[in-house]
């Protein structure tokens, strides 16, 4: 049982929901990424998603794309990110999943990448442009390494797809709350809650909701129905706004803390 599974087990006994925070590795630099993970764990974040930047992300909105660009222009590479995670692991045992496009993994070599992930203490993978149909090899390798492979369900997913995607998922299931790309949008409809309940008819695995969540109110509403709430673009925007500010880490942690509190 890896750290993600353990976390959900622990949360279940405590009758709590998971708060999952996304940050881009190397935005604004890898030292800050390292400090952010430790600080976010301190304010109660349950799971961290670390984005490996990609030059041409299809499934991410302009905010995350811009953060990828900032990270890449600083010379952030997969190898350097792996080293950063290794350093984080000296200070923190928070569950960490990598989120990235498929091409950096393919280029690194699937098996070599998974092995490197396990070696530095990564617990799961989220690859938005890799549907389960194309992930068979990756999934069977990941299973051997006890790495979670987290797949998506979208508002457009048919029941057939909900069934197969939840089956292929391990760790948790990622529900994309808005039909669309990531980005902070005000309307988080009540229909999301209905949809979560619908997905839960197909699986016992934790269902977490992401995309378009930015306020404590939204976190609260979604947290009632989902097993976890994922916030990405909104956090990345605060990082962007505090670029060059030596108090970046406390500022981001303060914002995230306000969201985490809404779940408790």
């Amino acid at each position, binding site marked *: 049982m890896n750290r993600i599974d353990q976390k959900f087990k622990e949360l279940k006994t405590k009758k709590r929901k998971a708060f999952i925070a996304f940050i881009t590795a190397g935005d604004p630099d890898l030292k800050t990424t390292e400090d952010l993970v430790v600080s976010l764990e301190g304010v109660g974040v349950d799971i961290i998603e670390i984005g490996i930047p*990609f*030059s*041409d*992300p*299809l*499934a991410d*909105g*302009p905010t995350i*794309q811009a953060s990828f*660009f900032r990270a*890449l222009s600083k010379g952030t*590479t*997969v190898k350097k990110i792996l080293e950063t995670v290794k350093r984080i692991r000296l200070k923190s045992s928070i569950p960490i999943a990598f989120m990235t*496009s*498929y*091409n*950096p*993994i*393919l*280029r*690194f070599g699937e098996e070599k990448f998974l092995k490197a992930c396990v070696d530095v203490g990564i617990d799961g993978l989220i690859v*938005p*442009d*890799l*549907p389960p*149909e*194309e992930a068979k090899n990756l999934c069977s390798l990941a299973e051997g390494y006890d790495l979670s492979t987290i*797949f*998506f*369900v*979208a*508002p*457009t*997913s*048919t029941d057939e*797809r909900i069934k197969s*995607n939840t089956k292929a998922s391990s760790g948790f299931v990622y529900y*994309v709350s808005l*039909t*669309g*790309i990531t980005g902070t949008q005000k309307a988080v409809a009540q229909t999301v809650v209905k949809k979560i309940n619908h997905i839960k008819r197909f699986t016992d695995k934790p269902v977490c909701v992401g995309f378009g969540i930015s306020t404590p109110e939204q976190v609260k509403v979604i947290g009632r129905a989902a097993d976890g709430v994922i916030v990405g673009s909104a956090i990345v925007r605060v990082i962007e706004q505090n670029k060059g500010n030596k108090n970046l880490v406390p500022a981001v942690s303060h914002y995230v803390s306000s969201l985490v509190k809404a779940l408790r």
Partner: protein
Amino acid sequence: MKNKVMKQLLPDKNGYYGSFGGRFAPETLMAVLAQLEKQYQAIKKDKTFKKEFESYLKEYAGRPTNLYFARRLSAHLKTLKVYLKREDLLHTGAHKINNTLGQILVARRMGKTRIIAETGAGQHGVATATAAALFGLKCIVYMGAEDVKRQSLNVYRMKLMGAQVIPVESGSKTLKDAMNEAVRDWVTNVADTFYIIGSVAGFHPYPAMVRDFQSVIGREARQQFLAKENKLPNYLLACVGGGSNAMGLFHAFYNDKTVKMIGVEAAGHGVDTHEHSATLNKGAVGVLHGSKSMLLQDNDGQIQIAHSIAAGLDYPGVGPEHAFYHDSKRAEYVTITDKEAIEGLKLLARLEGIIPALETSHAIAYLQKLASRAKKNSTVIVCLSGRGDKDMNQISQFI
């Protein structure tokens, strides 16, 4: 000589051509791609659709296009008899209209009211805006800001026909970035929107669908050539960016094993520099824009910025079926530099009174190299994929 009925073996049911292709899409698009595939399979067999499509190709686009024997060019090249498949004479000035008419008819059958497209040189954008105007559908075209600058004439054409052109400022501000933005739009507006992809690239079933709509080029050319020469040609020649005109010409000849296929990639400033678009020659296996193919990328899997004087070839990827042809050696892929392409353009203009597009000029330029290695009296069909009117601003400095 009768064309054997070609079994449509590829792609396989998962959208693969050998080890290339597939459907690497965000979950939001997966169901709609499956629905598109299903509907497209049904439409393909539907006789009324076929009739409707053929009627638009004939009455509106101007098919069949001529297979023209280039007498003076052939005399100049000495060893080669050159036939030009005149896609440049189609409405809108390039082969792109074949595909956009096909896809817009599919969109109509699926009840979609909003059309989006990406464009590089602007030819696909113009062809999409044209088809959208013809059917009264709303049309949004994403175009790299760099391309908006160098292909301003096509921007005016699209606007005149009522399309909204959105300049894309991210990344290299060229075709790949336009495609990123178009996909993002589609993910957000998938309910009412149909995405018309312009090349044999993207998520399954797009590479197959675009190929099918473009394969009319090769079917006609094969028949026309047989009628004129009573044999099959020795060579087929076409430029390759994403690869739609090349695949359109090649596909009908796939089983004619004596016919050698040559795709011409853009070498830009040279394949040994970092400024080229020679994906098959210099790239590595990767996934971009929905399919597994060859890509220009660095050791970390980041996509490299392509370069070509021809905006339509300025793309770091290539259609998966070309990667398969390359891998299985069914076709050969060569390169032509920016400089050579300009010479090719001038050559055709002076010898035949035909000004080809800069993209097409790459194929023309390779004729000189082919002539030096071909046996005497060899025959070649060149896909004259587009005309050069759109490039006049850009090439005025070379005249």
